């Protein structure tokens, strides 16, 4: 069941109502049942894998805690992490490596269907094991609660990566789901669908056309497609996250944010603190930080190495493709460049206060464009495809077909939708959304909700189904 399907809405409704009538101590069973039901709708075999992986993490956690010596703890943790990462590696990257080893061939039995959400749940579980090892949380003894945590269905498809540290306590809480939480969850879902159906899927048509054969289009069209993809990805993924977080709220949980006005970040370090936040925080805590600790006595070389490995990991997390690798490396270079020169830049602007005011403008602009450049690699089918896009823009060639095959009506819908989206994002970021919403009279609130609903129903692009981040 994809998120944007009628079936899912029905399923979510049933889960919400059932949850309300479930006795508090049985809630974990409710979540297990519904989560595995949801997972079965994708594939029964992989549900077994999910359970197996959950058990591994569960027992490893207990093992780490029960081990008497530091040595023992470390061994248990390492074993658990290796097993979990190993499973992820095999199931996720096998196809990519098979492609690499024998390109173009691929007899059917070589290809394994990538288990849905494997990148997300293995990351969740690895963080659990390591957190137990670090003493941040105590190992969970309740197998049912743990299974519910691992399989929690709103987060299965594409995160956010919700760690045990904040999830399990919420699960143990006994109390009714507040009415306001239910309605805010529904609003969040509505907004998520708005972003996905009105903006992302619509932009996708334009972006896909141009990325498919950039050679047919002029530089303006290619440039717009490059911008368009980033906005599409943003609307798509933040929409998905909103649907996930909204669904989570319907079940009484609060899950972490994934985005915080990323395109207005003043530098690339800030950007990564605002884009796909649950993933970058995960990598920061479990990859970057430990690496930094290891390399801390190597000065800047250590920093550079840690950044490179971390950003490459971000790239490859999306898949073992050269384009993802290029994407990661490019961001690694950006980060290194920015990290090593930040102090000097700050000093420069301190000395030139007039220019410092301009910095608030071009800081985000430059960062945004760096991101766009890397995103071309992210989106392209191949390195040569990415190069086609880039050279197409650089050629400044206006002789070929332009972007105008995209109807004016579509552009208008995108513009209006985009503005609405960013206004809401801005209010959310400042924490003012709830105040702004509830300060309106009831009829106004319903008008806003109807506005969004009819906008979605009237202008939603119901054709395509793919969430870009779903394949991870």
């Amino acid at each position, binding site marked *: 069941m994809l998120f944007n399907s*009628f079936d899912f809405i029905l399923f979510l409704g049933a889960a919400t*109502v059932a949850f*309300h*009538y479930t006795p508090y101590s049985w809630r974990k069973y409710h979540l297990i049942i519904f989560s595995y039901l949801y997972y079965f709708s994708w594939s029964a075999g992989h549900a077994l894998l999910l359970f197996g992986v959950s058990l591994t993490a569960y027992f490893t956690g207990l093992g780490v805690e029960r081990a008497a010596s530091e040595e023992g703890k470390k061994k248990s943790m390492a074993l658990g992490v290796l097993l979990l990462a190993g499973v992820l590696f095999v199931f996720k990257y096998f196809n990519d490596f098979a492609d690499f080893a024998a390109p173009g061939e691929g007899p059917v039995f070589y290809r394994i269907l990538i288990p849905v959400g494997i990148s997300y749940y293995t990351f969740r579980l690895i963080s659990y094991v390591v957190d137990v090892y670090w003493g941040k949380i105590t190992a969970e003894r309740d197998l049912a609660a743990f299974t519910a945590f691992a399989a929690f269905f709103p987060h299965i498809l594409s995160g956010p990566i919700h760690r045990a540290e904040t999830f399990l306590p919420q699960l143990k809480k006994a109390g009714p789901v507040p*009415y306001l939480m*239910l*309605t805010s969850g*529904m609003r969040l879902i509505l907004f998520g669908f708005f972003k996905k159906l009105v903006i992302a899927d619509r932009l996708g*048509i334009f972006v896909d*056309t141009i990325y498919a054969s950039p050679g*047919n*289009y002029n530089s303006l069209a290619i440039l717009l497609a490059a911008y368009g993809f980033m906005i599409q990805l943003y609307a798509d993924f933040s929409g998905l996250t909103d649907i996930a977080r909204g669904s989570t709220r319907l079940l009484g949980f609060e899950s972490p944010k994934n985005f915080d006005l990323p395109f207005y970040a003043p530098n690339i370090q800030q950007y990564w603190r605002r884009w796909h936040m649950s993933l970058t925080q995960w990598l920061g805590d479990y990859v970057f930080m430990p690496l930094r600790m290891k390399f801390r006595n190597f000065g800047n070389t250590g920093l550079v190495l840690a950044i490179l490995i971390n950003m490459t990991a971000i790239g490859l997390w999306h898949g073992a493709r050269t384009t993802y690798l290029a994407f990661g490396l490019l961001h690694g270079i950006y980060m290194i460049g920015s990290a090593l020169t930040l102090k000097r830049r700050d000093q420069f602007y301190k000395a030139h206060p007039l220019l410092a005011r301009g910095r608030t403008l071009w800081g985000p602009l430059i960062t945004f464009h760096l991101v766009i450049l890397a995103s071309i690699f992210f989106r392209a089918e191949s390195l040569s495809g990415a190069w086609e896009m880039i050279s197409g823009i650089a050629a400044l060639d206006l002789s*070929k*077909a332009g972007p105008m*095959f995209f109807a004016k009506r579509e552009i208008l819908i995108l513009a209006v939708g985009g503005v609405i989206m960013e206004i809401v994002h801005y209010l959310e970021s400042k924490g003012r959304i709830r105040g702004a919403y509830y300060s309106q009279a009831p009829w106004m609130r*319903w008008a806003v*909700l*109807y506005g969004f*609903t*009819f906008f979605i*129903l*009237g202008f*939603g692009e*119901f*054709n*395509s189904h793919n969430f870009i981040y779903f394949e991870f």
Partner: protein
Amino acid sequence: MKKLIMKTFLFAAPVGLIFIFPLYVLSASGEFMTAGRIIAMQSADKEPNLILQAYSDPWSYIKMAGIKQRRPELIALGTSRTMQFRQAFFKVPFYNAAKAIDSTAHLVTVLESLNEKEIPRIIILGLDPNFFNPNWVWYSSNTPHAEPKSGREWLKILSQKWLQVYSDFINRKFRLKHLNPKRNDQGFHRTGLGARVHNRGFLNDGSFLYLRHIVKREAGPVPEAQRERNRALEDIREKDDLYVPASRLSETSLRELEAFLILAKRRGVHVAGYLTPMAPSMLEALEAEGPNYEYLRKITPALQKLFQKYGYVYEDFLDSRKLGATDAHFVDDVHETGEITLRILKRLAAADAHIGTSVAAPFPEESEMNRKYLEAAKQRVFTL
């Protein structure tokens, strides 16, 4: 919770109400008929069907499924310009698979999706000139021949088109009378608003019938046809869409076509290709543009060589004047009526033995064909 459920229903009620009218319109007019049912209707019904839906276009899938189900010996393949070949023209089992492709890109896919039992022996391949225009941009939003998920298709159509149904009704594009099945069965069993409002649609053999055009033509020039040609002339002036200027041929399309010919040869399929015709006034307008459409002159030499390389026949019918056509033989700028198709077929039959032995004997008469349709427009039952 009860409060929330009630409030949700209260909220959803007006939303639901909005959908009632489009739901009624779409279901009563046959717009929701699934591809599966259409295929079944076309194979089983003795009653002549005229099927054309206005709010969806599942024909790429239907045509592929049609080939697989019927396993015809001969098919016509191409875009909507190749839709006029009918079973009556042939003495072997025939199916018109036009609209299974919309460019050269999916040619190979068509062959690859057919197994040994399903693949036809002969393919009449209609090639549109713009296939070979490197500046012509065509976006195929669906994966070719994608099977619509049955059972949920109606919901998808409803959610996509509900607003358009309202606006079309307000603009008088259709009337309530079109929703009444009984009033729409004169001569043909009409399914879909396209068939009911415009009196045109797909026949059981996969071919397409412009019934209204044929009936109206008896009384004189058809204004809608001229309007369409004017629109195309406008496109030529604006250098837009199908009429983007080009001076060379598209390498990609040639490669895709050759891949198709190679595969056909390997699988023992005989292909007869032809360049689809345009209305005479269109061609005159293009010729007046001269060097802007240089690529048009280059198509035949290139395709002639390509087809000969594999022992296949290719004919150039772009200039319909050579077939004795006038604008009256076209429903718009590029779609001909059946007479022209017959003339094309006659020449193909003469040039290609495979075709020659497959056409009906005696060869159908144009006037006879039209008479049958004009009668059908009045009768209750008609056998083709």
